[in-house]
């Protein structure tokens, strides 16, 4: 029986993957082909902006709907003729059949963590086993001593993918050395960085790879119990993990006497409740134990005193998904990818102002330019790249002129940002750096757990300064004060949240200080984003008097009759931008500094 793979990743489901699947089932039945084809619902295939996807005989069809499915069944399956219009196009416009091999978005990737994504049905343990799943666990249990496993991971140079980049093998070794009859392994699946969805895709698309990684870690350090801490925002991931754990237990990969050995290990799921700080490992442990998720001072580190005081290894989802591959293929093979200090690959989530949004796994050391232009297809709408934000609220911005920097832990730190969990937000000329800094500070003010003063008060003070600047009420002294505060908060906060919270401020100041100064001195927002510093106006030359803007305006600020020039009353305008969205003639534009009612704009 031949396989038809349909992407059932989160984004594809949202764009209608299930109705595509149902249409496919129906068409196959009608054509009497249901005995010949098996539909496999897979995890995320990566290019979320073009879903739903379907793969038949290696041919990749994108942007599907029910009608497309009917055409494909008629033409491709029955007639043997590929339907060109649903194929993916190369950047030059040429359509390709086997996009996974031919399109640069896919062809430049190296799939270790995402090896099974888009290939197997995440609900089927047999699919996972057919592709070599649980072989590594078997090998470890039957052929290797715990110390051998640790050596293998140490040699691979694998570093934690949760943000800090701590060597995984070393962490395991510390935990293994602890003398204790109870130990724990925890998978950090909190993925709190807004704009990141790598872990979500792995959990939803290949949950067994995470379970296998956890079981191997448990064997290496001598743990009996594991927890997966998943954020509540990922219900599908929770569902798939629940199914996977149950299957693994029934097949003897989890539970008592795994694979007939005397090694026993089981896993429970714990659900987060929407607190960013719970991604931090000490806060996460508190949360697992059912407490308020407040961090504590380290040391002692979790490997010494973790859950309920016992040695605990905490690893990120992606870190764990690497493990079985390394055991199966050997550390030398792993080190063929990436750089000396940052071996292997990293999964990145591309989002923001970029053509190909989605998930990519690439060797570390690749440059941002390759990632954004060759793989990501560049910036939409002919706009200019302004900066790239990495590491979420703990990271910073990298200006466009630095995008030839290789992506590895050290290079990003040198630029003032961090690798973080792998969220990459691309910003273009319409994004204001003061606004971006303010956005992240608002986030950290809200998410600061309040336990230590520098973080609680310092982030608030920084936010207030940014707010003033964004309203044109800031002074030059404010900018200096902001910078000083940032340094204090960074150096004196208790946990990683506070220690990294100033990064968005520090990097925007470092690379875009002039933009701050323009806000202060000229009361102007060059990107025309900061609301208090802009006005919407209508271009008399372009306005056709179609009334679309007048109809949509929620406050009745627009005046004008059909076929006559329209006008925006500044005193009524709330700057929601709806008029600009609906105008088909590009007649609405923004100016900064703002104008007053009755003030004429110099034509732009």
């Amino acid at each position, binding site marked *: 029986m031949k396989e038809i793979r349909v992407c059932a990743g989160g984004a594809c489901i949202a764009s209608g993957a299930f109705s595509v699947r149902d249409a496919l089932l129906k068409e196959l039945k009608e054509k009497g082909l249901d005995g010949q084809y098996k539909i496999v619902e897979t995890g995320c295939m990566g290019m979320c902006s073009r879903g739903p996807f379907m793969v038949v005989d290696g041919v990749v069809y994108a942007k599907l709907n029910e009608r497309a499915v009917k055409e494909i069944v008629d033409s491709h399956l029955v007639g043997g003729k590929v339907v060109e219009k649903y194929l993916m196009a190369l950047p030059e416009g040429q359509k390709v059949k086997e996009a996974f091999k031919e399109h640069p978005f896919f062809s430049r990737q190296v799939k270790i963590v995402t090896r099974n994504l888009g290939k197997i049905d995440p609900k089927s343990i047999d699919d996972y086993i057919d592709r070599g799943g649980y072989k590594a666990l078997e090998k470890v249990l039957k052929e290797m001593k715990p110390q051998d496993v640790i050596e293998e991971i140490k040699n691979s140079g694998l570093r934690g993918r949760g943000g800090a980049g701590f060597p995984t093998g070393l962490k395991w070794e510390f935990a293994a050395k602890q003398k204790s009859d109870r130990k724990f392994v925890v998978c950090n699946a909190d993925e709190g960085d*807004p704009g990141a969805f790598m872990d979500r895709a792995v959990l939803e698309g290949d949950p067994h790879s995470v379970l296998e990684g956890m079981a191997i870690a448990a064997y290496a350090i001598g743990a009996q119990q594991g927890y997966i801490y998943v954020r509540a925002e990922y219900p599908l991931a929770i569902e798939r993990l629940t199914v996977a754990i149950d299957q693994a237990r029934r097949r003897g990969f989890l539970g008592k006497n795994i694979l007939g050995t005397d090694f026993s290990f089981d896993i429970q799921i714990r659900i987060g409740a929407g607190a960013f700080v719970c991604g931090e490992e000490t806060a996460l442990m508190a949360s697992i134990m059912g407490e308020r998720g407040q961090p504590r001072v380290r040391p002692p580190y979790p490997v010494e005193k973790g859950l309920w005081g016992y040695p605990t290894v905490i690893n990120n989802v992606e870190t764990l998904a690497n493990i079985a591959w390394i055991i199966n293929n050997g550390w030398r093979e792993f080190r063929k990818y990436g750089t000396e200090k940052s071996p292997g690959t990293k999964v990145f989530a591309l989002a923001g102002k970029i053509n190909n949004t989605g998930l990519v796994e690439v060797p570390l050391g690749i440059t941002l330019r390759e990632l954004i232009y060759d793989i990501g297809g560049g910036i939409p709408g002919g706009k200019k790249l302004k900066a790239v934000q990495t590491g979420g609220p703990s990271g910073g911005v990298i200006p466009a002129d630095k995008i030839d920097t290789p992506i590895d832990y050290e290079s990003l730190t040198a630029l003032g940002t961090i690798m973080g969990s792998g969220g990459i937000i691309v910003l273009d000329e319409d994004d204001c750096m003061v606004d971006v800094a303010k956005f992240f500070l608002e986030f950290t003010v809200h998410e600061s757990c309040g336990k230590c003063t520098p973080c609680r008060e310092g982030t608030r003070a920084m936010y207030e300064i940014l707010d003033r600047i964004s309203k044109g009420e800031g002074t030059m002294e404010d900018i200096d004060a902001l910078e000083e505060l940032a340094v204090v908060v960074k150096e004196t906060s208790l946990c990683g949240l506070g220690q990294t919270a100033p990064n968005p401020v520090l990097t925007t100041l470092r690379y875009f200080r002039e933009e701050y100064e323009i806000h202060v001195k000229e009361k102007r927002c060059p990107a025309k984003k900061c609301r208090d510093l802009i006005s919407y106006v209508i271009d008399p030359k372009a306005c056709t008097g179609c009334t679309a803007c007048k109809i949509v305006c929620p406050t009745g600020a627009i005046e004008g009759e059909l076929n006559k020039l329209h006008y925006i009353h500044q005193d009524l305008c709330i700057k929601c931008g*709806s008029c600009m*969205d609906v105008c088909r003639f590009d007649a609405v534009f923004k100016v900064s500094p703002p104008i007053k009612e009755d003030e004429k704009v110099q034509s732009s």
Partner: protein
Amino acid sequence: MDRDKRFEALEAYMKEINYDPSMLINVLHRAQQLFLWLPKDVMEFIAQKLRIPKSKVMGVVTFYNFFSTKPVGRIQIKVCLGTACYVKGGDRVMERFLEELGLKEEGQVTPDGMFSVHAVRCVGACSMAPVVLIGDSDFYGRMSPDKVPRLVKKYKRLAEQMVKEGEPS
């Protein structure tokens, strides 16, 4: 489901996990699923069954964003304000929802008790930004403010239906 049935369902869940107090957060999730938010008597019930102080339950509930100690609309509109959604204009989508529903701020409930609008953090669908979730499972990607009025209309009809069918709240 009437109120007593919900308490029963909650107790059944606690029994399933052997009244393990370290599972408090999971229990609260279950409670919020059943009651939509966490009224005081529900929290007291949990404290009593798990044999932990009420203050402990309150402490945990107030720490986490996900839990609400105030009533919410029967149909909740969740607007993502994660980074990707924000840079693509999620804040403007948010405002438009508030305006269309005549609400002053997020978290407020419409007088008929049907709707409330909430800002949420990244829901992991950044490639579809800006993103809105309505009710339990309706997902809308690539949103813009001018798509809001139509959606509001659609759900107002649904709300009317819910009232007509007399589903107890």
